[in-house]
């Protein structure tokens, strides 16, 4: 068994977070969540009903069992700190957990996070007692600054959201992991199980996957594939990967008889 993941004192056995956008139906989303073994599910607040009226036309939350999953609201759509903070407060008022995946990406094209506004919002939300999981570019200094003010994780991107390009920011992520005092969750760009395994082998504490599962021809099976990849990558990381050599190294060494 791999070691459990601990975020803000809460323990999780799965190291795979799932996003809930882009699925062909809420039923298929529910199926994929179950198949993935995930325990942390993020939902865009702009798609949910925050009025408390149980809007049947905005009922995404009704397909996620809060007893089984930690619902992690996200602030996607916010363009600045003020908007993100307001959304987070509304989510709590609507009865959602006081956990927030802080996403501020003013550029709708690449959805890259705004470091300045993210930092400002994180400061405010931490002060208000939120458990803050900020989505950031793979910037080691920003990651350190956020940890200093008390965020529960940092969530650097591997590549732009939905791009499925894998760990384009690998070298920066390596530094973030090396310096981290809180869990590091690779948040975006994970398009294939091999990317997820790579992130875990590198020492990431968890990965978040959405597009690659949601738009797969069979989201359930793809969710299972990611689950296996994350477990494989984590196990390998905990055991320690074998060294890489430039030349071949025989499994039956020629000088073995000298022992």
């Amino acid at each position, binding site marked *: 068994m791999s070691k459990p993941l601990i975020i803000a004192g809460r323990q999780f056995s799965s190291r795979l977070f799932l996003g809930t*956008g882009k699925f*062909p*139906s*809420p039923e298929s989303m529910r199926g994929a969540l179950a198949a993935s073994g995930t325990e942390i599910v993020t939902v865009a607040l702009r798609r949910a009903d*925050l009025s408390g009226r149980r809007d049947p036309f905005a009922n995404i939350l009704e397909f996620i069992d809060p007893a089984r999953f930690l619902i992690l609201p996200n602030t996607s759509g916010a*363009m600045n700190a003020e*908007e993100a903070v307001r959304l987070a407060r509304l989510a709590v008022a609507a009865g959602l957990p006081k956990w927030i995946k802080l996403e501020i990406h003013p550029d*709708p*094209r690449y959805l890259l996070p705004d470091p300045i506004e993210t930092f400002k919002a994180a400061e405010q939300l931490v002060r208000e007692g939120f458990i803050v999981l900020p989505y950031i570019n793979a910037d080691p200094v920003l990651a350190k600054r956020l940890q200093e003010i008390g965020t529960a994780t940092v969530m650097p991107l591997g590549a732009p959201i939905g791009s499925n390009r894998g760990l384009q920011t690998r070298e920066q992520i390596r530094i973030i992991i090396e310096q981290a005092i809180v869990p590091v969750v690779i948040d975006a760009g994970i398009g294939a199980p091999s990317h997820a395994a790579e992130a875990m082998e590198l020492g990431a504490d968890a990965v978040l996957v959405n597009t690659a599962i949601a*738009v797969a021809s069979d989201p359930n099976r793809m969710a299972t594939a990611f689950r296996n990849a994350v477990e494989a990558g984590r196990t390998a990381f905990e055991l320690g990967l074998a060294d890489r050599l430039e030349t071949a190294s025989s499994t039956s060494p020629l000088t073995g008889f000298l022992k």
Partner: protein
Amino acid sequence: MSFAEAFNALPFSNLIERARGAESASVERIIANGPSSLADFAALLSPEAGQSLEMLCQRSQAVTRQRFGRTIRMFAPLYLSNECINNCAYCGFSRDNPILRVTLSVDEVVREARALAEQGFRSILLVAGEHPKFVSSGYMTECVRALRKFVPSLSLEVGPMETAEYLPLVEAGAEGLVVYQETYDRAVYSRMHTLGPKRDFDWRLVTPERAYAAGFRRLGIAALFGLADWRLEAIAVAAHAVWLLKYCWKAQLTLALPRLRPCAGEFQPLTSFGDRELVQVIAAFRLFLPDAGIVLSTREPATFRDHLLPLGITHASAGSHTEPGGYTGAGKDAVHKTVRGRIIEQELGSLDRIAPVGRATGATGQFEIADDRTPAEVALRIRQLGYEPVWKDWDAALMA
């Protein structure tokens, strides 16, 4: 720098030449690698690219699914007024058309919006003719303020205004602004627009920039296909989009491909833009602008819409009415006939004012709808196609 300058500097003749005569080798390369320039986009409009329409659509579908998932965002238009001081040859609301007009009161607008909300809509596009007296910035601000209490997402498609006039609308909670240039061909534009402020091509062209400066977050642009050469229109829309993505970088962009529909005034399209061409332009837009929303309205008939939806569409309207009061009959008692901008009769009991069969009000629509299915029927069909109809994708709290 404004788009008006960039537009004037576009090498249109080269681009059109490429759109008409790109060779098969370069078209194949562009489809395989994705278009990386306006010239590449133009090549995707060529007859040669039309030969590879299936491949174009396969790529378009894959790109759309990756970027937007298997989802279609639902919205409905709500017409506030069909009063207008412009004469636009192709539009039913033209000032000189002797039609039945009305401007809804704010309470009537709320009644219409409630009817739409009951059907599921959480995103409403407020539409009106251009008439500063009836459809003022103040009136629209009141409408937005009243609606945002129960409608999470409000956009506007109304006569262009100054940035300062847009500010109170954004403040009140409007997040999107849609303005169609109608045609990007200056000569055709001046022939089509013979009266009113809309005659000013450049003023309209830079409207999205003024709207962005006021804080709108979604900008919608389009050409009305059927007025000028469709290849020229598509190239101009793409160039406009590229400019907006650079200079209005925080805005979400949507494109539409409206085709002329029958309306009062009996205008006939000046150019043809067939189904195949429409599909080709959707796919070309998608490959060139992977992140732009593409809107499909009820101008197109039901079956055709069902086939278009999985090719690159991200936003769809349903159950639309283009006459003010069309959803509930709101304002029907205030309907009056105007000719050349003058009210010619408003006595009660006029036969003209009686709503035609199947309509809630006697007010005249902007154009005829081709897909008259209910929103629930359209949503069911979307699900059957393997997509989720998304009703709410915005929260008013974002703008507070």
